[in-house]
């Protein structure tokens, strides 16, 4: 009777989650297909692929994406698995973590699970139903990926490899669904479960990175290291799949065992207690907001450094890399007076600036999330004005935005200097990067404007950021009309060193931003809080 009414629960869970599942599937499969398709054009010749393979053999890149397999015959398939498999698998792992927690601990925390359990359903039915649903979505993504890759029929991507590619994705998702199922038995809140699961994923990634660079045995202790040993599109080994299956099975059984033993709402690990009294930091509104975003801020700064460093690590091989590839040259445009590295630098700077805009806008938009949860009310009814509240968020986001940019540029320079014969001075990097601050500020100002006047539409700012990214990233290749490109604030920044530096566009953007920010302050002061 432990599984009584399982089919009905499955239907119930499916009805709540089908849309999210489809969105995950379309994004993951879509990304895979797009990249596989573009590889055909970008790296059509063997020479182009071999240069890429050499770049990827650099230890920094191995630590990031995994070891290079099949270097003697580096097919498009081998390159695809090398560059994409690990990250796609991580996306599936994340999906499994989110879905699993949403279907189990979250339900339990909100008291919904109690309602279900009071009905005539088996004690393990709900956990099984969640597990089956998550496993099914992972399976579906694997199958659709395999089928799409076979239909795409890119040269160098054979059927066996494509099958393996899908299988590896599915099994990665399964492993983390099982890991999360165990973790949700251990922690008391869904938040803690999420934190612990993501930590396990990060540790798995790090162990793999260390192992891939130093000794393969170490990698095998990480689920992510294990799956790469299948050498997809090269050797297509099945043994890692079986090991992963066993692991999934054992962990699932453990989760069921723990779930069956524990009380509803309880956890095996006691919830960590907080402080009895507030620290000094929390006693100011600014400190409180900083504390609330602490984890996000640290995570983003680390991510920005890694982003910079990973771009920097390829700077040494650039000239030979670009010399072989017509398409990449076309993306950069024609500036014969400058070296390819310098031209590539200008593009890197825009991309890094756009990435640094993400934490900046994200940290500001927290104010809207807090408003929706009616938590701004606590602050606004304890003697803090609207102007102050908005300024605190703005200050944090500005600071983090600038630091993100600097830290990414620093990462770029450090890694670049290590691999280049003739390193570019840090100040050159910094100057090129910092000139993008006004363009970033415009995006932040627009986010403020939306928040002040159209709070329900605030997240539309991401659309503008994505648009900017595409005009910059693909602008050279797609011949985007000038009027369209000029809608992006990044369009106006002089691309040093290729273009002459001038202050005028920067100052104009700065003035516009300040005006918009002031208008936004007034707008927010005069509107209702909308929960």
């Amino acid at each position, binding site marked *: 009777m432990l599984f009584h009414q399982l089919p009905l629960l499955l239907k119930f869970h499916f009805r709540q989650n089908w849309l999210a599942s489809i969105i995950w599937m379309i994004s993951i499969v879509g990304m895979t297909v797009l990249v596989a398709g573009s590889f055909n054009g970008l790296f059509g010749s063997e020479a182009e692929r071999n240069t890429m393979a050499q770049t990827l053999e650099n230890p920094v890149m191995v630590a990031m994406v995994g070891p290079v397999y099949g270097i003697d015959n580096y097919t498009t398939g081998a390159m695809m698995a090398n560059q994409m498999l690990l990250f796609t698998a991580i996306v599936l792992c994340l999906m499994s973590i989110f879905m699993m927690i949403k279907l189990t601990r979250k339900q339990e925390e909100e008291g919904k699970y109690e309602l279900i359990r009071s009905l005539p359903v088996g004690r393990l039915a709900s956990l099984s139903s969640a597990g089956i649903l998550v496993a099914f979505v992972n399976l579906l993504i694997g199958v659709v990926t395999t089928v799409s890759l076979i239909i795409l029929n890119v040269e160098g991507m054979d059927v066996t490899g494509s099958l393996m590619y899908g299988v590896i994705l599915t099994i990665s998702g399964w492993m983390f669904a099982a890991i999360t199922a165990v973790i949700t038995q251990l922690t*008391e*809140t869904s*938040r*803690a479960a999420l934190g612990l699961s993501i930590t396990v994923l990060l540790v798995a990634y790090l162990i793999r990175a260390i192992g891939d660079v130093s000794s393969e045995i170490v990698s095998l202790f990480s689920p992510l290291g294990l799956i790469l040993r299948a050498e997809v599109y090269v050797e297509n080994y099945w043994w890692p799949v079986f090991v992963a299956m066993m692991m999934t099975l054992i962990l699932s059984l453990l989760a069921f065992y723990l779930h069956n033993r524990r009380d509803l709402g309880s956890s095996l690990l006691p*919830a*960590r*207690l*907080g*402080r*009895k*009294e*507030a*620290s000094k930091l*929390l*006693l*100011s*509104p600014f400190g*409180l907001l900083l*504390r*609330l975003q602490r984890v996000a801020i640290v995570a983003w700064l680390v991510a920005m450094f890694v982003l910079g460093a990973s771009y920097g690590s390829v700077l040494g091989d650039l000239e030979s890399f670009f010399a072989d590839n017509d398409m990449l040259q076309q993306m950069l445009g024609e500036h014969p007076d400058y070296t390819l590295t310098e031209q590539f630098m200008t593009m890197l700077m825009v991309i890094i600036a756009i990435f640094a805009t993400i934490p900046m806008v994200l940290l500001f938009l927290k104010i809207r999330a807090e408003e929706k*949860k*009616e*938590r701004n*009310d*606590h*602050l*606004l*009814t*304890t*003697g*803090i*004005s609207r102007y102050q509240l908005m300024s605190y968020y703005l200050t944090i986001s500005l600071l983090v935005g600038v630091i993100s940019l600097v830290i990414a540029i620093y990462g770029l320079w450090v890694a670049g200097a290590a691999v280049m014969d003739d390193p570019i001075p840090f100040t050159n990097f910094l100057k090129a990067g910092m000139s993008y601050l006004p363009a970033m500020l415009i995006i932040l100002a627009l986010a403020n404007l939306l928040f002040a006047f159209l709070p329900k539409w605030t997240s539309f700012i991401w659309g503008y950021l994505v648009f900017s990214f595409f005009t910059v990233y693909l602008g050279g290749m797609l011949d985007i009309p000038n009027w369209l490109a000029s809608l992006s604030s990044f369009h106006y920044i002089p691309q040093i060193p290729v273009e002459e530096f001038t202050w005028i566009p920067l100052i104009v953007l700065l003035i516009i931003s300040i005006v918009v920010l002031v208008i936004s302050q007034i707008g927010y002061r*005069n*509107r*209702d*809080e909308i929960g």
Partner: protein
Amino acid sequence: MNMMEVKGVTKKFGTFTALNGIDLEVNKGEVYGFIGPNGAGKSTTIRVLLGIIQATSGSAKIFGKDVWKDAVDIHRKVAYVPGDVHLWENLSGGEIIDTFLTFRGGINKEKRDQLIERFQLDPRKKAGTYSKGNRQKVALIAAFASNADLFILDEPTSGLDPLMEQHFQQCVKEVKSEGKSVLLSSHILSEVEKLCDRVGIIRQGEMIETGTLEELRHLTRTNMVIETVESAISLKEHRGVHQFNEQSGVYTFQVDPEELGHVMQLVGNLGVKRMESTPPTLEDLFMRHYQMEKE
């Protein structure tokens, strides 16, 4: 002295009129009960009073200052407890209480610890693990440990157990005895009856009744229970008699205030064996308005 003065406040959301000409007054040292069914506009009124949303028209003043323009100034001396308390999951109850108290002007540790003790809150637990009642306790402790002059409490006891509710009532009585004012929106009518000096009933965005409980009672029927020698069935059809019921010689009914004297005379003639009369409870008052709504 008026701590709070609301005149003709109207709030529209698009074409929907949430509040229509609300009048409300809370005096110094007074506990004002604000009652009404769900969706009547209690919380909207309170959000206007806190300057979280702006009234479409009318004037609302606290301490003689405009609730929208001078919100920050007013809030230094106001403590607010929302009906549904949302807290930051990763902060502990103790941290949140201290933070709120500091924002309101400073921590009185003795008062705070005494209240934590009284409400039996574990301040070290993270807010994410608190039940609804515990989250309410956090907000209540942060409110009562402050040195506010006006307490705005929006259904503050909906998650508390009866014992905690008593502690809450004690807290309200204490702040009242210190000459502070309380606006208490509540569903628990017995609580309002016990604590409040004056009561306002809101329905569909309009204040339909306001006054002291005594005043309201005068407007309402008295509950009667009688046992008589002769049959009292004739009273059933009498003017001003409602909800007439008979069970093995015991009659229960309600009488309108204006007919009370007349009905008493008739009852006297029937040979009274037993007679009980109870003043209408707040619930009777409330239910009568519901019934009027239905009719």
